């Protein structure tokens, strides 16, 4: 793995993430958010988890980002009010960031290089999912169904009113 490629991907991802967090226009932020996932999936490709990267792009860009822009369109807002900015949040975020960085730097055992490993095939993941993790898989299936129905009920127009 190349430190150069890593640097490019990391800086791209972080810049887009910063844009997603700070851009004043919600739609721009949402689109940056979608692009950010491209960077994250590039990370996954770099780390040898192609499948997760593809799933990430598939789910986030194909579904979650579309949902978010739909929601933005369905909730026309009063612009001036929503653009407020809480500085206390910045302080907290920086504090947490400081704490995390301090912990990472302090922990010597994480300063290791990756081992050489064979690429993970889709078949391996499929077998792991279907053999070792079949219960969680079923539970996630139930959860997704429940979330689907719950979301539908939440946004359903109330016919009575």
């Amino acid at each position: 793995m190349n430190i150069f490629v890593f640097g490019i991907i990391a800086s791209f991802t972080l810049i887009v993430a910063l844009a997603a967090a700070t851009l004043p226009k919600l739609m721009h932020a949402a689109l940056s958010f979608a692009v950010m996932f491209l960077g994250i999936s590039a990370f996954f490709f770099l780390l040898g988890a192609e499948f997760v990267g593809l799933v990430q792009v598939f789910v986030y860009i194909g579904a979650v980002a579309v949902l978010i822009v739909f929601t933005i369109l369905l909730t026309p807002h009063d612009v001036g009010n929503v653009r407020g900015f809480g500085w206390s949040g910045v302080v907290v975020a920086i504090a947490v960031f400081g704490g995390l960085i301090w912990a990472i730097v302090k922990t010597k055992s994480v300063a290791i290089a990756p081992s050489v490993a064979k690429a993970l095939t889709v078949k391996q993941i499929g077998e792991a999912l279907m053999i070792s993790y079949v219960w969680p898989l079923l539970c996630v299936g139930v959860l997704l169904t429940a979330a689907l129905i719950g979301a539908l009920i939440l946004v359903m127009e109330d016919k009575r009113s």
Partner: protein
Amino acid sequence: MTLSTLLVVSATLFCLGLFAALSRRHAIFILIGIEMMLAAANINFIAFWRFGPHTAHPTGVIVAIFAIAIAAAEAAVGLAMVIAVYRHFRTTNVDQFNQLKG
């Protein structure tokens, strides 16, 4: 490139998400921030799997896949709630959702 550099990147991503969730007034930003934090956590899972001793066991990958699925469900429900709340309050500014004020 070491594990710690990856962790620094994911920590940065996490804190950007936290910042988005804490500072922005629009409800959707909170969701975006949470999704960013989850993505940062996913990077950590994958990184620890890749740098760990047992690469042949795709545990970290599986956890990341489940996290993505659950995050998708969470996004769906969260956005549905945003729409429902918007119908009720006619705004998406979280400062004005204070009916639970003690």
